[in-house]
């Protein structure tokens, strides 16, 4: 038993670290540190830098551009990326539709899409959630009716992240309503330029516009854009959702934030903005969350190591997700607490109020937007249901 990385892993970490340090454009780093909004172009730019290095899609099969990294290497890669303040890239492209097409797609689909997904030539969005089907994903109602070589789609998706940027959508649609609701779901790829698709932005409480409604009005999708068999979409979606375990707790991100929190606390204290007792209280809170984060990191590493040995605890991903999101949310509370009443103003003018400290006006939006991490990607209630079933057997 030991917690040390091997010499090879350390060498890999150094390689990744120095690459990130050199390759990440300064303006992107600055935006990330101040938690400012990233434009689509920012993400694309970075993804292409990674792709040129061969690291855009390390989790994919090697034949499609992936890296045959060990779980430890993937963990290191993600951690270093976060600590370097590098953007994460599009999870829809990298973690979701890419692996799905690589695993379940036809050769034609692979040829057509995979390289463009990796290079972010096509920006993908995920069409799963519907107004009547949130945590109960399989209750979706958007219908696809076969008409010759096309499916004709009518219905609505909601909470579609960054659909406003998207060139393509992967979507679950209902092709059959006769059986159990998990049956009769089909997995389709939609060109977002297809006539009949309307995207309506949804503003979120942090002032952002990442979420959208997407309406389908007789949208025709060629059958060749179907993944796998008709009616088996639920299986493909489940494969996709259960896929990634080494990054789900977002340890690297939280570590980077903790470093920032400590620096902010020190800075405020040095400038006389905190009383001794306020400082004492904040430092205790930081220590509390750091202990939890360290414990979660080690738990994550245990899962990573078990994965490397081929041992899988079915509910591990859910536990990592629950605690990881709780820690992320706890940290946003602490940022908000550090900002204090000066954090009330969140628009451009606020900049003037806080001597150019971008983090102050970003604190509250960050707190508000991060409420979503315990809702999206399988709400924490759903994760608890999964774990409970696993430990109780019913």
């Amino acid at each position, binding site marked *: 038993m030991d917690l040390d990385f091997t010499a090879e892993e350390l060498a890999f970490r150094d390689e990744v670290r120095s690459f990130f340090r050199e390759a990440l454009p300064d303006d992107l780093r600055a935006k990330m540190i101040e938690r400012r909004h990233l434009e689509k172009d920012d993400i694309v730019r970075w993804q292409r830098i990674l792709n040129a290095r061969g690291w855009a899609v390390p989790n994919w099969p090697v034949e499609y551009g992936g890296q045959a990294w060990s779980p430890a290497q993937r963990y290191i890669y993600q951690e270093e990326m976060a600590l370097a303040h590098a953007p994460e890239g599009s999870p829809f492209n990298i973690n979701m539709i890419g692996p799905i097409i690589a695993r379940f797609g036809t050769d034609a689909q692979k040829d057509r899409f995979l390289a463009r997904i990796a290079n972010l030539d096509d920006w993908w969005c995920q069409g799963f*959630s519907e107004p009547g089907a949130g945590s109960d994903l399989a209750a979706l109602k958007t219908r696809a009716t076969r008409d010759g070589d096309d499916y004709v789609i009518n219905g609505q998706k909601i909470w579609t992240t960054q659909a406003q940027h998207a060139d393509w959508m992967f979507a679950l649609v209902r092709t059959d309503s006769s059986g159990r609701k998990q049956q009769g779901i089909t997995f389709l790829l939609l060109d977002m330029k297809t006539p009949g698709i309307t995207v309506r932005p*949804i503003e979120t409480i942090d*002032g952002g516009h990442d*979420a959208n409604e997407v309406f389908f009005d007789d949208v025709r999708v060629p059958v060749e854009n179907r993944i796998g068999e008709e009616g088996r979409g639920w299986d493909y979606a489940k494969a996709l959702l259960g896929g990634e375990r080494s990054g789900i707790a977002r340890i690297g991100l939280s570590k980077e934030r903790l470093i920032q929190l400590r620096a902010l606390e020190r800075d405020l204290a040095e400038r006389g903005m905190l*009383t001794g*007792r306020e400082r004492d209280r904040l430092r205790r809170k930081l220590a509390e969350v750091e202990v939890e984060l360290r414990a979660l990191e080690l738990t994550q590493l245990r899962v990573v190591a078990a994965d490397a040995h081929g041992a899988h605890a079915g509910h591990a991903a859910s536990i990592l997700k629950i605690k990881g999101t709780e820690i992320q949310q706890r940290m946003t509370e602490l940022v908000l607490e550090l900002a*204090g009443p000066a*954090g009330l103003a969140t628009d451009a003018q606020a900049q003037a109020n806080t001597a150019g400290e971008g983090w102050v006006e970003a604190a509250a939006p960050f707190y508000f937007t991060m409420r979503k991490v315990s809702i999206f990607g399988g709400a924490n209630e759903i994760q608890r249901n999964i774990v409970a079933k696993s430990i109780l057997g019913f």
Partner: protein
Amino acid sequence: MNFEFSEEQQMLADMVDRFVADRYAFETRQKIMAGDGGWSRENWSALAELGLLGLPFAEEDGGFGGGGVETMIIMTALGRGLVIEPYLSTVVMAGAALRNAASQEQRAARIPAIIAGSHIMSLAHQEPAMPRHSFDVATTARRAGEGWRLDGCKISVPHGAGADELIVSAQTEAGMALFLVPTKLSGVDVVRATGYDGTPLATMTLADVALPGDALLGEPGQGEAILARVFEETNAALVAEAVGAMRETFDLTTEYLKTRTQFDVPIGSFQALRHRAVDMLIELELSHSMAILAALSLDLPGDQRRKNISAAKVQVGRSGRMIGQEAVQMHGAIGITSEYKVGHAFKRLTAIDALLGDADHHIDLIADADGLAA
């Protein structure tokens, strides 16, 4: 011991509830916020016509002589509606400064106009790089003949941009003092910002602003004592507002639990959510009790008054966070959209905790005072 409203108080409650119900549907509020100035002068006039702007002022000043309970009634209703108009800034906060420290002439020149809805005021105290609970302002006021010259910068002034006059804290040679500063004066620059809770804020700069002698509120050196009292009254009002926002949040959440269906049943049939809803109700009821305590404490001796109001602020700080977060979580994605009221209530509850000392700060005050007992 009596927790019933008097007949007059019940009429007041009904009136302000009706105002919110009739004029403050959530969609209306969103339109008001998106409009010029971020709040509605029409609504303000309506509040004036109802007599609500005169409530806490003395009868000799033209008001109705209402006390803590009356303000609690109004603020609770405004909290339910997430009302964005400058009641807290003008009537409660600036009003408290006038009530507690202004001369008869100063009051006569302003309170009737406030009551009529034609004079908007607020308090400008917070400054950049000022420790959060400090009275130690960098803004200065120099004697200049009979009058004063002010220099400095104030931030996060609630409703500062639409205000006719701001009460500004500044250092004089004899200690901190408060000044009445018309926003139209030469040298005053007010730039609007927006609070995350929708409150229009302002940044105010004062560059050698010339004020007459009667712009001084109270005496030089009395600023801290006046502000402390103003903050107590404001906190009591904020606590009541929070209870209104919490009750609205709780009602919306239970309604959602009853009507939203997942896995073919209402989500309110899931026991984990049911139990958490009960914990929300408990927090709400405890907060409600503490809002009553705060309202009834305003006339107590200083030490007990301060402690009771601190305790109430602690309770709504803790409860507001819990209720806001839980309501958002139980709603799921809809809870974090701007198109739904719960997210806005959550933001306002977050702001209320941050304003004038968060729960941790007030716990420290109580701990230092050896607890709540006299």
